[in-house]
């Protein structure tokens, strides 16, 4: 009964349509954000920031992007990795060729380039749906990666083909490349995460979000009530690719510090898809939960036997990981298609009544 909505009357539609209608929720989210900004850089260990928080946050952006396309608009994509790669390679190209441009502008710009590419590969969605579209996105996955590897222009004719991320700074602090401190990188990434998550929520509750969901749930009916299918689907492709592009750019600039194709292969596409399924299709919160879960599970599997004094060969762990991922996907699709986000909601509903059973 501590956590409740009874007795909190909303007196305007504006209040009812606010993002978080329950005050406790609102304080929780603000508190979490404040802690992430102030508390984490002061308290968390280098390892936690550099090897867990930064990649999880970046992958959350990619998962948000895919969730917009697949969860909200119902168009399946197996090309997430390619759109991330587009963001990474173009961010590198822009950052090294237009040196006066601040890095906080370079990354969204790279996202826009990825969005344009996303639109090109989304065009077939006019004629086809569902898994047919998966083939078009696979085309993006294989073709774009081939293109970035084969055309040396993208990496400024670097001999190794795997250039290192250029150091760039914001407000005098280095935020990209090997010289930047982990805290600075973390805060830089966090700023993108907060902005993009907020925008995603806004889109979900506005006309554009509803038109995506209408296309997802019943495209013919959507067209009959006046939603034009092509612009709607293409907008989902563009925005989704923008998110993925930003994620890819951050991944290269702030996490692995190099621009390399293997970071964005088809396994990355599947990884992000799993995050979306496990986290919850059509949920912003789910994108974060899914990203954390899928990223942390292998780390847990690798270290868990050590805690109990066993040692297990690395390839066995990999196999178990595959099996576990497969089983989890099926489990979530069958038992809770809305994923971890829905489980969280159920927990909150229980909490609302606690300590009474109903």
């Amino acid at each position: 009964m501590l956590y409740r909505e009874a007795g909190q009357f909303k007196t305007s539609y504006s209040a009812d349509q606010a993002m978080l209608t329950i005050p406790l929720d609102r304080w929780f989210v603000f508190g979490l954000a404040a802690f992430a900004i102030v508390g984490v850089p002061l308290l968390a260990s280098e390892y936690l920031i550099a090897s867990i928080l930064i990649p999880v946050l970046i992958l959350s952006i990619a998962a948000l992007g895919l969730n917009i396309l697949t969860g909200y608009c119902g168009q399946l994509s197996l090309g997430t990795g390619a759109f991330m790669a587009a963001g990474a390679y173009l961010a590198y190209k822009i950052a090294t060729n237009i040196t006066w441009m601040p890095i906080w502008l370079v990354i969204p710009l790279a996202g826009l380039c990825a969005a344009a590419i996303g639109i090109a590969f989304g065009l077939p969605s006019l004629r086809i749906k569902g898994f047919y579209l998966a083939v078009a996105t696979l085309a993006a996955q294989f073709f774009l990666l081939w293109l970035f590897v084969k055309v040396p222009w993208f990496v400024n004719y670097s001999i190794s083909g795997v250039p290192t991320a250029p150091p760039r700074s914001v407000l005098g602090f280095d935020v990209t490349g090997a010289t930047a401190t982990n805290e600075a990188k973390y805060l830089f990434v966090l700023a993108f995460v907060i902005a993009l998550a907020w925008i995603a929520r806004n889109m979900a509750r506005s006309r554009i979000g509803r038109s995506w969901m209408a296309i997802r749930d019943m495209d013919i009916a959507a067209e009959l009530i006046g939603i034009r299918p092509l612009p709607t689907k293409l907008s989902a492709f563009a925005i989704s690719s923008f998110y993925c592009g930003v994620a890819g750019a951050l991944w290269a600039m702030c996490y692995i510090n190099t621009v390399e194709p293997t970071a964005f292969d088809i396994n990355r596409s599947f990884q992000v898809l799993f995050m979306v399924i496990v986290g919850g299709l059509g949920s912003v919160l789910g994108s974060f939960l899914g990203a954390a879960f899928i990223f942390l599970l292998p780390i847990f599997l690798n270290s868990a036997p050590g805690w109990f004094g066993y040692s297990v060969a690395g390839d066995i762990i990999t196999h178990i990981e595959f099996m576990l991922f497969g089983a989890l996907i099926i489990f979530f699709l069958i038992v809770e298609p809305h994923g971890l986000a829905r489980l969280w909601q159920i927990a909150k509903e229980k909490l609302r009544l606690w300590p009474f059973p109903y």
Partner: protein
Amino acid sequence: MNRPEHILLSVKDISLRFGGVRALTDVSFDIREGEIFAIIGPNGAGKSSMLNCINGFYHPQEGTITFKGEERRQMRPHEAAAQGISRTFQNIALFKGMTTLENVMTGRMLKMQASFVEQALYIGRGKREEIAHREKVEEVIDFLEIQSIRKTPVGRLPYGLQKRVELARALAAEPELLLLDEPMAGMNVEEKEDMCRFVLSTNHELGTTIALIEHDMGVVMDLSDRVVVLDYGRKLAEGTPDEIRGNQDVIDAYLGVSHD
């Protein structure tokens, strides 16, 4: 409200074929402003095809459709929606993953103009519009008495209520012509009475012109101002309910002709 001289929609010599199958042959009729117009006929008579032609989902090979004095040949469904035609469907076509409120809000899609940036940042028109249209939508929700299921995902609602939400979505668009494809199919008597009440008050209070397909003859005869009868894709008769009741062709089509 009845101004019989004023024709809202005029269908002339419509023929529609799917490959070799003739779904509609030379069908003509007028729908007058402010009336309730019923399309009846046995199964497979081409009633739904007719509605699909009117709102642009099917494109008839021959004939013209004139809406508000404007003749149209080929148009996409969303253009018909923009001109003021909304409809409900024989098999409910709601967006199952969305709440009642969100479903009804989609009905106002065409009236919203906020730019993408305003929506993404929820500022300016983006925010104002959401609230202004929410007020309109709440009026429709009050009108159809579905306040209590506002935030329920429609997939969880019983059939009768889903039908009502679908009507709400169509009404939210403030249409000039409302097409109802079997609004009472599969309902029990009580639900049918409710639905009749809503159809009538839509017509009387909001002044919406309604074209409906219905199998329940009692409902059709009570509700409608005029009726057209289709059989095998052809027009069999047109007139007031009383005229239709007495028409020998119609009786033959429904009951069969004895060939002795």
